[in-house]
């Protein structure tokens, strides 16, 4: 009987001592937490994608409160989320244009071809290590899906019929994980706009060479630059680039392009 009693007393006493120590510790070592941090964390999208540049949603909430970070950086949450955060912080939300990924390559399997058959680890990074990739064009999408594995939202896929990565614009939140994973840097994150076109090519070779490599490659002919009424298009290194700030979405360049690489992003 006493052994049972002793056992009960022993465990209870250890538990009680532990409880007292923990309560004392939590009072003595109390770390004040700004309640706004928790509120903001609750209204953020909670995807921990890192599009805001912080280590996670909680980290971003902390940086808003403590370091005065901008309130509209949560791309998955969008404008609604920015408004809620702004309300908690008591500031203006500012505009929040959704950012989406664009794969700037039109070189599907029909338009370009491979210079060798690659057998090995199925990764763009690995293929890139062998003579700059297996495609004839060394600038384009390699199609081995490093971006697919980087995407936390299942928003980018390599279409087996097209051989290049395609962005699902509904699911894309513009976090930029795919752009960082792409060894050829064909993916860029641009503000979502239904009419503003982008040049879907990265080829910086001379026009004649580009024509040999891929039937859908920018040859740097300058036709788009001449057609643009707002002077938003510049051709550098035989590659056209559209300044999204100057572009008004008239789409004259889309009609003018002889190789058809200028398009608004597919919806």
């Amino acid at each position, binding site marked *: 009987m006493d052994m049972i009693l*002793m056992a009960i007393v*022993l465990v209870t006493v250890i538990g009680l001592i*532990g409880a007292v*120590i923990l309560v004392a510790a939590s009072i003595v070592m109390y770390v004040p937490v700004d309640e706004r941090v928790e509120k903001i964390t609750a209204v953020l999208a909670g995807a921990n994608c890192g599009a805001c540049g912080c280590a996670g949603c909680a980290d971003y909430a902390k940086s808003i409160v403590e370091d005065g970070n901008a309130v509209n950086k949560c791309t998955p949450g969008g404008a609604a989320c920015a408004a809620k955060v702004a309300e908690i912080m008591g500031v203006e939300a500012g505009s929040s244009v959704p950012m989406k990924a664009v794969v700037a390559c039109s070189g599907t399997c029909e338009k370009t071809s491979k210079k060798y058959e690659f057998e090995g680890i199925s990764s763009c990074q690995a293929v890139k290590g062998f003579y700059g990739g297996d495609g004839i064009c060394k600038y384009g999408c390699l199609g081995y899906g490093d971006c697919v594995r980087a995407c936390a939202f299942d928003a980018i896929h390599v279409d087996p019929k097209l051989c290049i990565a395609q962005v699902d614009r509904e699911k894309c939140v513009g976090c930029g994980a795919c752009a960082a994973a792409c060894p050829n840097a064909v993916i860029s994150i641009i503000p979502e706009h239904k009419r503003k076109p982008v040049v879907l090519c990265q080829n910086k070779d001379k026009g004649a060479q580009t024509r040999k490599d891929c039937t859908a490659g920018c040859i740097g002919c300058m036709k788009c630059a001449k057609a643009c009424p707002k002077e938003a298009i510049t051709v550098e290194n035989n590659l056209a680039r559209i300044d999204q700030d100057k572009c008004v979405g008239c789409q004259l360049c889309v009609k003018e392009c002889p190789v058809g690489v200028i398009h608004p992003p597919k919806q």
Partner: protein
Amino acid sequence: MALKLASIFFTMILVDNYVLAKFLGICPFLGVSKKLDSAVGMSLAVTFVMVVATAATWPIQMFLLTPTDAAGNLKWDMGYLQTIVFILIIAILVQLLENVLKKYIPALYKSLGVYLPLITTNCTILGVTILNIDNGYSFIEAIVCAAGAGIGFLVAMVLFSGVRRRVEQAVTPKCFEGLPITLVAAAITSLSFMGFGGIVESIFGV
């Protein structure tokens, strides 16, 4: 003495590795070994808690649960309470540690992050504390053993996160994708550690 301590330390890392030879702590081993930095963070937290938990549970076992008098006879035997008391102590310790780190070493608290509360009921911690008692180690030996077990955990995690990186890049048959191929890889890693059997005894001659 130093030789014996060194022998215990290296035995825990190479021969009696808690993950690869004793098969304790498999869930963090499989769960947190995907990325190298989180694997290292988790292992450091485990090592830390192992040493502190051993330092706290060893005296409790010796002076409260199974105390002996000068002649070495048991005064009373409440050894059957070992598991529940040890879990209680470890839970309290981890909680306390979290408070202390949060207040005084916020950088470490941040880097350990979610791993600290995760190891409250980690079986390696309980395993180390109980096996230290079962092996009849002295206090110093128990501490060294706990530190060795922690470093062994670190070695296993770091090695395996490298293995896993390679496995994930490889093309695996559909039916083996994900956890199955990871378990196969873990088995082979564990098999390779069997090769260390006897190495420590021959080096230190203990």
